[in-house]
């Protein structure tokens, strides 16, 4: 039917963030070997324990095999054809934002993340990462007054080596999986957050990751530690230029929450997704995990995944502390030839632990969108509970949606609930809205954001508006 075709067209929108910043960069040669890793470590003036951490990870990685269980189809990645360190050339030591290359500031301006004192966002502290390095972090002094540390991880390695040595790799060990091992060997930059005991972080913290260079991978590493009775809300955004080659992004994020601490981690992922023929786009292989170490600690993941040619991502929670809580709220939108395999793992170890999973997958075009999740309740996790809800929405008749829930319970005294549904935006629903004067595109986007409401409600307010707009943009296009 006529409208069925229109639905296919409607999910087209040119990628707004596809520009390249023309800037002189310092790149090392392509390829991956021990010397390269030593070189990265040396460039970052790292202590020995970190070099050892990297080399050990590299040895493990060499023995590992790229996972294929997600059934994602992509051309084999040549790991020797990637540049593992690329940084814009800047003065050696930057003491203030005034010394940051104006081109870089302009880039972040264009992305809607102004960094300069006059223009910076008033209620969010931002760490801006450009290719392999952190460019600037705003509001550092204000945060420091509260004892909050928010800086690039490279800086943390220099100034807070004890914390890094104590926690790095304790949530996602280098041997955890192929991409985590790779990241552990070559990670370049990312954010570090430390919230001291009893402190509620006075503002949202945010990292903005920008890939600029076409032939280098981005391997960022983020570590967030929330001490006893502290809390923080952290946001993450990502964009990249349009290249007709694929760029590898393999990040690791580790969260640690101690007694009564809470961490809310929100992502809006809008990496370049490739064109309608599936050419180009980011390969997004990410390991995100939080450890609820303390009693009554809480880790909440919310994500809006709209970009990347391939998304392979399972933000998870290890619920060790008694009565600790894990949450996962996800919206994944795929279009054209995008493939997303995303979900979560909720590992209940401590007693009376609780987890909630709400996943909304929207597949349009010829895309493939899968939810893959594991709920595991261990022998000691008496009285634990999980609730999962996985809904899929199909737009058009060429897209596919799958749900792969894995449930393992070793504890009879626990409760696990799983609900799943699949729906299609029906012609009748669209006609109903249209017959009330609502434009076709707006009708589609109303229904999609209605479908995602449960998840959007979990996002920080400004982020929710942005996510709603982003989905609308992705769904906007040439109708008729």
């Amino acid at each position, binding site marked *: 039917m006529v409208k069925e075709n229109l639905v296919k067209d409607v999910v087209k929108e040119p990628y707004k963030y596809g520009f390249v910043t023309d800037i002189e960069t310092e790149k090392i040669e392509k390829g991956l070997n021990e010397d390269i890793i030593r070189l990265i470590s040396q460039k970052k003036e790292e202590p020995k324990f970190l070099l050892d951490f990297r080399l050990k990870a590299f040895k493990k990685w060499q023995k590992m095999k790229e996972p294929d269980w997600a059934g994602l189809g992509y051309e084999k990645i040549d790991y020797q054809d990637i540049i593992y360190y690329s940084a814009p050339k800047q003065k050696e030591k930057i003491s203030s934002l005034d010394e940051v290359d104006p081109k870089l500031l302009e880039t972040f301006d264009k992305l809607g993340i102004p960094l300069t004192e006059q223009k910076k966002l008033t209620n969010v502290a931002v760490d801006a990462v450009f290719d392999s390095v952190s460019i600037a972090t705003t509001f550092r002094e204000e945060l420091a007054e509260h004892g909050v540390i928010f800086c690039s991880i490279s800086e943390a390695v220099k100034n807070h080596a004890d914390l890094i040595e104590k926690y790095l790799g304790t949530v996602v060990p280098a041997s955890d999986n192929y991409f985590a091992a790779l990241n552990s060997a070559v990670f370049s930059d990312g954010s570090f957050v430390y919230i001291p005991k009893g402190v509620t972080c006075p503002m949202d913290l945010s990292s903005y990751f920008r890939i600029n260079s076409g032939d280098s991978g981005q391997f960022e590493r983020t570590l967030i530690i929330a001490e006893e009775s502290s809390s923080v809300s952290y946001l993450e955004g990502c964009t990249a230029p349009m290249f007709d080659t694929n760029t590898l992004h393999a990040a690791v994020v580790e969260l640690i929450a101690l007694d009564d601490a809470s961490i809310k981690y929100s992502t809006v992922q809008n990496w370049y997704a490739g064109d309608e023929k599936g050419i180009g786009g980011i390969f997004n292989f990410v390991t995100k995990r939080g450890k609820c170490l303390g009693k009554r600690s809480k880790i909440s993941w919310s994500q809006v995944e709209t970009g990347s040619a391939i998304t392979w991502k399972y933000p998870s929670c290890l619920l060790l502390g008694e009565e600790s809580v894990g949450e996962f709220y996800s919206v994944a939108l795929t279009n054209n030839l995008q493939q997303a395999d995303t979900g979560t793992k909720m590992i209940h170890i401590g007693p009376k632990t609780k987890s909630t999973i709400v996943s909304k997958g929207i597949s349009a075009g010829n895309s493939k969108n899968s939810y893959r999740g594991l709920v595991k309740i261990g022998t000691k996790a008496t009285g634990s509970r999980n609730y999962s809800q996985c809904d899929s929405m199909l737009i058009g008749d060429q897209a596919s949606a799958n749900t792969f829930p894995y449930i393992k319970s070793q504890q009879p005294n626990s409760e696990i609930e799983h609900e799943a549904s699949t729906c299609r935006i029906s012609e009748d*629903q669209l*006609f109903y809205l249209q*017959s009330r004067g609502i434009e076709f595109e707006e009708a589609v986007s109303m229904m999609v954001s209605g479908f995602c409401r449960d998840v959007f409600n979990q996002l920080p307010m400004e982020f929710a508006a942005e996510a709603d707009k982003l989905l609308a943009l992705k769904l906007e296009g040439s109708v008729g």
Partner: protein
Amino acid sequence: MQSQMKESDPILEVENLSASTDNLPILKGVSLAVYPGEIHAIMGRNGCGKSTLSKIIAGHPSYNITNGDIKFLGENINSLEPEERAQSGIFLGFQYPIEIPGVSNLEFLRVSTNARRKFLNKEELDTFDFEELVKEKLEIVKMDHAFLSRSVNQGFSGGEKKRNEILQMALLEPKIAILDETDSGLDIDALRIVASGIKKISNSQTGIILITHYQRLLDEIKPNYVHVMSDGQIIKTGESDLALELEKKGYEWTDNFIKET
């Protein structure tokens, strides 16, 4: 017969309209003209093409017009999108109003009302002004404010869905309203509320087409004309007493007209 000696131009004119879906002809030459202030009833067996006629006038994409014209305020609207028709003042009250999960009824009504207002060059309403307007209109259909915070039609009873349709009609103030079996599934009280709502909204400048099986709605809203449809055609047109006769004699009686023609 009705088109002679009218003082004003018709709001809606359907001229010799034929239409099909999946190459199956459904309408086979329907003609109908609705003038300001008129109420028309269309009756007929299930499957005779009544609902199809209403959907085609509203622009449903599943049907192809194979012959004839639909004119609204003198303009041919055959190729207009459904939303353009709605914005310009054509309203279709659905026989089975559609559920839209996750979309709040209030937001839906506001976006819809503003689309119509924009067309009329009226100022679009923000959430506060709209609250005021909708409160007033809720009175007409005796609906509770709580309906607004629910998802569009989701979990509504049959009667609530129909009242929600009339609420939309009240907000959109259409030039012509086609109400497809709005009376079906209503108890007597709900029927009265709906009927009195329709009467309040319509006036000497608007036209109404009631598609119905039952006399009881026509007792409440007396039509100027009654059309009987069969197999995609209007086989008989009369005044309101035709409906009474039909109620007595049943549709079998009308089968004779087909034989005659």
